[in-house]
């Protein structure tokens, strides 16, 4: 579904990603872990199409198409979804107006009919249950004044509404207490199927207790330095990142 080959990315003149390769197939959950500043969020943002980065070389194909050629909205329309680490507050646009616009723009791009008001509300009310979203948040401005937990729930709620094929969760666990973490993780698990895939970017292992990955990759200084199964995450939890750093330094 997603194939990244030797991806190198700069911010201004600084190389942040130094040759990343990764394959993700439908039905899989990949965790990307690593210490702060290793390039995890950059990878997530590049995949979603943020243009403050410069792709120097490498290829990214998504469902056999060149992802890097696509505008952010095209990527979303094809089925890429990024759950933001810091969801943006947009005063003056209500959550519901925003969602309805997004759902219908995606439907339009996929050649589907617009949802009428009734069908939209029905879908919305059904998907709200996925993350136990406070209905009051729907009529408020998008993310404005939401608590950290409310913002993250709202991201997963959007994901449920848009039904992506590839969802990238960027530090979705940060700022969540354990109850909210469980709710969000349960929401994600309920959306998992054979046809979609997840990339879970996280610093800590605790989210992976609830969203169990098939593969764990450790990103350090812009490279994937170690890949393994969910046991690798447990090992990191226990030993921290220092041993990885040491291993890398020894080799180089």
């Amino acid at each position, binding site marked *: 579904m997603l194939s990244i080959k030797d991806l190198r990315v700069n911010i201004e003149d600084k190389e942040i990603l130094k040759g990343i390769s990764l394959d993700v197939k439908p039905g899989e959950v990949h965790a990307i872990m690593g210490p702060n500043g290793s390039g995890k969020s950059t990878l997530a943002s590049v995949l*979603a*199409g*943020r*243009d403050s980065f410069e792709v120097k070389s490498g290829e990214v194909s998504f469902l056999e198409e060149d992802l890097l050629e696509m*505008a*952010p*909205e095209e*990527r*979303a*329309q094809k089925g890429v*979804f*990024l759950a*933001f680490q810091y*969801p*943006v507050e*947009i*005063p*003056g*646009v209500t959550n519901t*107006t*925003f969602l309805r*616009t*997004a759902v219908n*723009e*995606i439907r339009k*791009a996929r050649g589907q009919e617009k949802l009428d008001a009734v069908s939209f509300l029905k879908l919305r009310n059904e998907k709200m249950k996925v993350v136990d979203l406070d209905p009051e948040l729907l009529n408020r*401005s998008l993310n404005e004044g939401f608590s950290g937990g409310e913002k993250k729930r709202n991201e997963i709620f*959007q994901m449920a509404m*848009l039904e992506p094929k590839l969802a990238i969760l960027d530090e979705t666990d940060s700022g969540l207490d354990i109850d909210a973490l469980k709710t969000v993780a349960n929401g994600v698990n309920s959306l998992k199927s054979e046809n979609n895939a997840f990339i879970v970017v996280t610093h800590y292992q605790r989210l992976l207790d609830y969203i169990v990955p098939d593969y764990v990759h450790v990103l350090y200084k812009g490279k994937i330095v170690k890949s393994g199964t969910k046991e690798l995450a447990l090992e990191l939890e226990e030993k921290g990142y220092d041993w990885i750093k040491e291993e890398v330094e020894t080799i180089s």
Partner: protein
Amino acid sequence: MLKEQTLALVEKNFKNLNGLSDSQFQKKREEAKDLFEKVELPTTKDEEWKYTNIKNIANESFDFEAFGSLKKGRLKGHTIEGLDAYYLFFDNGKLVDFAESLDLENGLTLKPLKDAIKSESSLVDQHFSSHLENKNAFIAQNTALASEGVFIKIDKNYTVKKPIAIVNIISANEYKPFFATRNLIVAEEGSSATLIEYSIKVGNNKSLQNTANEIVISRNAKFEHYQIQINSESSSEINTSHVSQEGDSRYSNYKVSNNGWVVRNDLDIDLKGSNCETNMFGIYKLDGKSHVDNHTSINHREPHSISNQLYKGVIDGNATGVFNGKIYVQQKAQKTNAFQSNNNLLLSDNATINTKPQLEIWADDVKCTHGSTTGAIDEEALFYLRSRGISLSQSKKLLIEAFGNEVLDKIKIDALKNWVVEKLS
């Protein structure tokens, strides 16, 4: 050209006084005429007109008294859908079809200014041109030409049930119209009313309207005032509104400006009593070569009043916006609360905003804040919307609307709000 044509019309009007020659009203008009003859039209050397050049307007040859092109049956087409109001239609500055359709309430007096000069002479003599100073040539022009316009009086403790709508229809198919209208509004003690002014342009010729409001709000009265300026790039407009507020009164002004060749608005509010409340909400949405200048001033003379101002601009193309907001707090006006905010969204590299807040405070126990921001569309917000599948153009539209909604949401009449939103989109 404007000057000569104006003086010729004033001369003509003054020959036809029908017994008004000794009135205070006529004395004020003559004073204004003398002043207009003497002073020059403002230039950009004048601090108050620094960013607004009216040279092209002044040199244009307009058609004065260009009446009669409006078909009677067509007036209904210029009402706002779903807005039940007392509609008054002006055809290039002349009140048409007055009273045929108006079934007025007992507490409301609504009549052409030229009738009120006789039937309401004591009020007209007391108030006409005694609050609004002839501080520039355009106001002097308006006062000297005063004849067309409406007189509105709301009786003591009376609440008017429907809004009053003044509709200026600019017929610019065959003419290049110039006109001046003058409204005098007296809200008596404890009364309450809503006034909506809007213009509709028919035709593409150049036009100029010089409109002025003199509004007197007595103790404990409430007055809501909407001024909707939907213009094309051939329309120019000079609007001056002077509001005099007595103690415990409330006045809210909502100003919407969409495009225009040269549009200049002056909103001057004089808080004569204590415990007044004043709101000024404005939005200007400009594109092409439009030029819109909003000057406001509020004078806190007595203690315990609140004034609140929010003006927002969305400027695209080669358009220019000007905002100048003055707040005066006199020494006596302790415990004043005055807020002012002007925010601008520039959508193109050639869009311009000149913004200048001016605070002059002589009292020491007051709360005054002001702020001004100017920027482009927030890239983070744009990316967020696009990452949810919303196209670039649609995302921009949502963000621009969101920016403006803070002001548009203040409009309390749904039918009016819907109409304005449609006109602005």
